[in-house]
């Protein structure tokens, strides 16, 4: 089972991100369960959503305590919420930021994780460019597909089309594609070094 926890703030589409991730996994024939950290969705307040992906039926209903991957939609949460709580040592971290882990003040945490499993992606800027709105949620799913390979970019695009239509869908898809490429590029830089 692959478990993802998404941290963000109310209004950033945290819950929708988890739902889209589950749809993408479903489209690949997997079982998936997405659910919010119930009830706390107020604009600007810290919000958590969860997504489990498995090859068999998922019966477990507890919140995700030991995630395989963490998506952080808002880096200002780093000082407020214990976002890395329970993260597995070989887990993935995707942060919405144009800065590096060192610049975000979390180089200690980054040092414990595998270099090819952590990436900062300026998702809000990418969203502004392709979508015209500061919505990082679908963008980060593109980066997620890029570094984890758990789902394909095509499935992310299909999940976006399932949730949105028209210009919003297309803008999110091109933004997710840009983030996918950006994440891949970061990984290839790592290989060069």
């Amino acid at each position, binding site marked *: 089972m692959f478990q993802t*926890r998404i941290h963000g703030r109310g209004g950033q589409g945290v819950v929708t991100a*988890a*739902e889209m991730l*589950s*749809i993408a996994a*479903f*489209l690949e024939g997997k*079982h*998936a*369960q*997405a*659910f*919010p*950290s*119930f*009830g706390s969705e107020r604009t600007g*307040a*810290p919000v*958590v959503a969860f997504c489990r992906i498995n090859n068999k039926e*998922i*019966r*477990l*209903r*507890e*919140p*995700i*305590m030991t995630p395989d991957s963490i998506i952080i939609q808002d880096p200002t949460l780093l000082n*407020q*919420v*214990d976002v890395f*709580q*329970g993260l597995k040592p070989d887990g993935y971290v995707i942060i919405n930021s144009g800065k590096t882990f060192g610049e975000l003040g979390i180089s200690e945490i980054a040092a414990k994780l595998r270099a090819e499993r952590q990436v900062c992606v300026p998702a809000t800027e990418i969203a502004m460019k392709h979508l015209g709105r500061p919505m990082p949620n679908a963008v980060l799913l593109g980066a997620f597909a890029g570094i984890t390979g758990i789902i394909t970019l095509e499935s992310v695009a299909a999940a976006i089309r399932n949730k949105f239509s028209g210009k919003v869908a297309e803008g999110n898809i091109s933004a997710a594609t840009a983030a996918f490429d950006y994440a891949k590029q970061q990984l290839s830089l790592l290989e060069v070094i």
Partner: protein
Amino acid sequence: MTLKQIEGSHGVAETIALCRPEVICAYPISPQTHIVEGLGEMVKAGELRAEYLNVESEFAAMSVAIGSSAAGARTYTATASQGLLFMVEAVYNAAGLGLPIVMTVANRAIGAPINIWNDHSDSMSQRDCGWIQLFAETNQEAMDLHIQAFKLAEELSLPVMVCMDGFILTHAYERLDVPTQEQVDAFLPPFEPRQILDPSHPVSIGAMVGPEAFTEVRYLAHAKQLQALDLLPEISADFKKSFGRDSGGLIRPYKTEGAETIVIALGSVLGTIKDVIDEMQEAGCSIGVLGITSFRPFPLDAIRDALKGAKRIVVLEKCFAVGVGGIVATNVRMALEGSGQQVRTVVAGLGGRAITMSSLHAIFLEAMAGKLEALTFLDLNSEVVDHVLELERNVRLSGPVAESVLRNIGTVASNIA
């Protein structure tokens, strides 16, 4: 059938639409709202032909449901928590009049303190109202139970409450098998009322009944519920024939054969418990779990049979009767009268407190070791409780309790679970 990755609430809304309701009474309250919103969208889009009423309160919702059901229309509504409490007088009337209304209760705690999260206090408060109460383990079962609920309700002329865990199920996206209209039509015939308000054949429904007949009318309500004990397994078997799935029925044993300890629970927590049972059985523990699908009527015989041979019973419930203890456990003890089997109550998941595998594992080990007290509150923060009790002993003007507890706990935004 079509597999879809959708929210539990949306799955229920789609299923209700397939049941061809003629009247839907809608009043929003979390965590039920997405269901009636979903139905509203379908009615507006012309996909569902039903009278959709935006009523002014839950009391009105049930009152309208009583009127429309008495007029012979298949009637649906949904509520939760304080909403259910607000409609209580009409809830009792719907049962007393024998009207086959189907209502979803998206289980949520009851205030004060105000809390929008899940537990079973709301539907448990209505355990004696005369409605049949079915508890869904998964979203798939929640959908399936609604189809079965209309069939059962209309056969017996009794209202049925389908209880599904608020947020945990209603707001979870999962793979759901949505049946076709043809399948549902073949399983659920059009509503043929046992009583009807019809101007061309005038009758009265709801007569004043005095001491000379009240006991008999009430006894018949009980007898009807007992008929459901036979009907529920039949309907569940028919459902399996048509839809190919196990859903509904009275109880659901899981790895209970030969188990020395058997856990009993209702609703979505059964999934987490099953994962714990698998782990523990692999480690050599003799433990299984029994899910109760039908809480009203309470299947005394089926439960007694399922627990035969077990030494210890642990009833894990998301509610309790203040001043006494377990509600489900009290009923289980009735089923076990004279057997000498030990029943322990674990109250868990109140107001949305996460029920984790690790906490369950620990409490089940305690139970197996015979160390569990008669009544335990899972993951209770005793330090905070003791602190507040001490404050009350020492200070006359000790202030409101909930606020005292919150002050002791501190900031909660940084917690994951």
